[in-house]
């Protein structure tokens, strides 16, 4: 009964970890996942994904899901 959580780029370095496995008990949405993993408030411009799809913080999360948090993607200027 677990949720896999992944962190990328500067967020990974800031939190000091690239992956977490958390107990899904008591986890309802993306915001709950963040709270279970990070000791800092959810930064405004951090993006989230659930099972490889961009997600909002109020999106429901279920047992077995993979949740990811990362900074804005960097595509570069046109």
């Amino acid at each position, binding site marked *: 009964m677990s949720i896999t959580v992944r962190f990328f*780029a500067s967020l990974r370095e*800031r939190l000091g970890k690239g992956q977490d496995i958390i107990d899904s008990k008591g986890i309802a949405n993306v915001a709950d996942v963040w709270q279970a993993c990070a000791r800092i408030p959810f930064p405004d*411009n951090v993006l989230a994904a659930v099972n*490889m799809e961009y997600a909002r913080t109020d999106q429901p999360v279920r047992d077995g899901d993979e949740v*990811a948090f990362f900074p804005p*993607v960097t595509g*570069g200027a*046109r």
Partner: protein
Amino acid sequence: MKIRLAADAFDPWQEIVRYQTEHPGLAGKFGATAVFVGTLRDFNQGETVQAMTLEHYAPMTQKHLERLTGEAASRWPIADMLVIHRYGELRPNEPIVLVACWAAHRDSAFAACRYVIDELKTRAPFWKQELTGKGRRWVEQEI
């Protein structure tokens, strides 16, 4: 339609020739090939760039590249498409990304190629870390 995430340096022009050779069914079906190649510069934001590391979220990258090439194929009548994107450590002058679109006519080839590279830049989860004379820096907004 092919999408490849490449750990090692690639030659976009050889890749185009190889793809056409490996897909003989394409021959005669296209009159236009639009190609975009993105290459690593040796300067950015006033600093000399010695190298760049591209981090990505592999399964999500693959999924979103497949989706946006599919979108392009449904919007324009294209014959085929090849997308190759590097990850890992790159040196200046190495190609980062190739988008090649084959179509009967140039309008569709250009439009599909442009759509894929523009959408890729905002939707595919890649993050750039540059190595400059001052050390390593993430190319992104501060968080």
